[in-house]
């Protein structure tokens, strides 16, 4: 714990409006579950603005084919919520992430905001689900896709307030991750898939991969390969397309070739889970 970090003040607003007012001061940063901030050596000179206890940011609502998830919703809360099939991948990612004592506090907004966290589990799920983030500041709010938010980050004074996820009829989704020893460690590869089905034919698909590269992202060719047949028929072509499409990274957890090798198999498992409803 550096001296700098120890002296950093933590402001505790009681409403989102107050949080935005505090964030308009220079040098401030958002503090949610703190699991990432506490491992970061840097500290914002203006202090943190704690938002995890704000009720307005903790809501999960579903109506009119749209799921809304507040940015301070924890992984534990997502994992125990019965989400519609179209958004099931998000609950599965939350349940598989880390372990109970982290899931208790870690938030969906924090997972997205930790842009250097390549292994963030909720991000590929949100990307595959076409989630749109709403970002507020003193000047109002704007909406942008999660992948773009990961790319550019929040500007000073901005706060992610919630994510909206379309849940049309006929859409299903699933998520799986692979770890070296199993259990609570970071994934070496994670895959989230969302498909629209007519009967058993895939009419559109989104495949997102996490942990394999520096940023989770959509894999367009793998998704294209799924369209036009059944999940079973199209799985081998989609896996081949995914493997060809990746530029995997090497780190202490796994070499790039390994991530590439297993990604196709992991996609196969996710597709099989979508086909049978079973979680392997």
């Amino acid at each position: 714990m550096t001296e700098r970090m120890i002296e950093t003040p933590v402001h505790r607003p009681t409403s989102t409006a107050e949080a935005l007012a505090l964030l308009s001061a220079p040098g401030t940063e958002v503090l949610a579950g703190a699991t990432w901030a506490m491992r970061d050596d840097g500290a914002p000179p203006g202090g943190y603005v704690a938002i995890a206890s704000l009720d307005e940011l903790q809501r999960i609502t579903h109506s009119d084919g749209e799921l809304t998830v507040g940015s301070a919703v924890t992984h534990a809360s997502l994992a125990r919520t019965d989400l519609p099939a179209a958004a099931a991948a998000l609950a599965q990612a939350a349940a598989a992430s880390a372990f109970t004592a982290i899931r208790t506090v870690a938030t969906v907004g924090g997972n997205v905001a930790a842009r250097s966290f390549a292994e963030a589990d909720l991000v590929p799920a949100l990307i595959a689900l076409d989630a749109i983030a709403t970002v507020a500041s003193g000047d109002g709010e704007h909406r942008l896709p999660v992948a773009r938010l990961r790319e550019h980050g929040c500007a000073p004074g901005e706060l992610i307030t919630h994510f909206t996820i379309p849940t049309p009829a006929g859409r299903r989704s699933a998520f799986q991750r692979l770890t070296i020893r199993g259990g609570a460690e970071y994934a070496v590869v994670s895959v989230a898939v969302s498909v629209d089905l007519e009967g058993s034919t895939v009419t559109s698909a989104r495949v997102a991969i996490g942990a394999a590269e520096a940023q989770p992202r959509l894999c367009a060719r793998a998704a294209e390969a799924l369209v036009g047949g059944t999940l079973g028929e199209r799985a081998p072509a989609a896996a081949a397309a995914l493997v060809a499409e990746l530029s995997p990274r090497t780190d202490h957890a796994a070499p790039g070739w390994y991530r590439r090798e297993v990604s196709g198999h992991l996609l196969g498992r996710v597709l099989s889970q979508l086909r049978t409803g079973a979680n392997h």
Partner: protein
Amino acid sequence: MDLSLTVNGRIVEVTAPAMTPLLEVLRESLSLRGAKPGCNEGRCGACTVLIDGEPIVSCLYPIALADGGAVRTVEGLAAPDGPIAPLQDALLEHAGVQCGACTPGILMSLTALFDRDPAPDEAQIRDALAGNPFRPALQSRPVFPGQQRMGCPFRFRDLVAVPATAVTSFGPLRRGAGTVRCCGGSLVATRAMGVAAATSRERRSSTRRIARRTAGVASAPRRA
């Protein structure tokens, strides 16, 4: 900042910098040394405590967020003059306590589980313990559904030998006149876990602090 929180049923007032880990306040300001500093990055689970009934890793929990909350530590599982909790008794009975470094974290993870569901199945027990990957005390015992015995991926030989000269009394684990032997607490936890090289200054100094506190260990081990 000035804070007020409930710790093991007692209201305590604390003054500490806002981003101080709850673990540090528990150990340094409140002298509750049950929760252990292991990896200091939320991986080993040795510092697990409950806040408002939910398990958290206290090394990653800023004290500012604990203001007004109810914290429960291993010291709060049994009254100082009362019998130990059934869970503690079960761990002792099945020789599930060795050096004691991982035991408080395991007890708190399982307490949260059993408070929520008195008869969890094997999958729930495994999930509840996923955050306590360092658990030599439980060795490779199989899981018996409905009983408080847990599986463990580590075998005893995975532990790094540390002179077992220190005998530490863990208050709540006291049984009759005897004490639970401890071979160096967190020192063992940190080394046995094979946690990635501790390059940061704070982690090195944390190891030194732990070493100083550990009677019988002359100096801190050098880590790459």
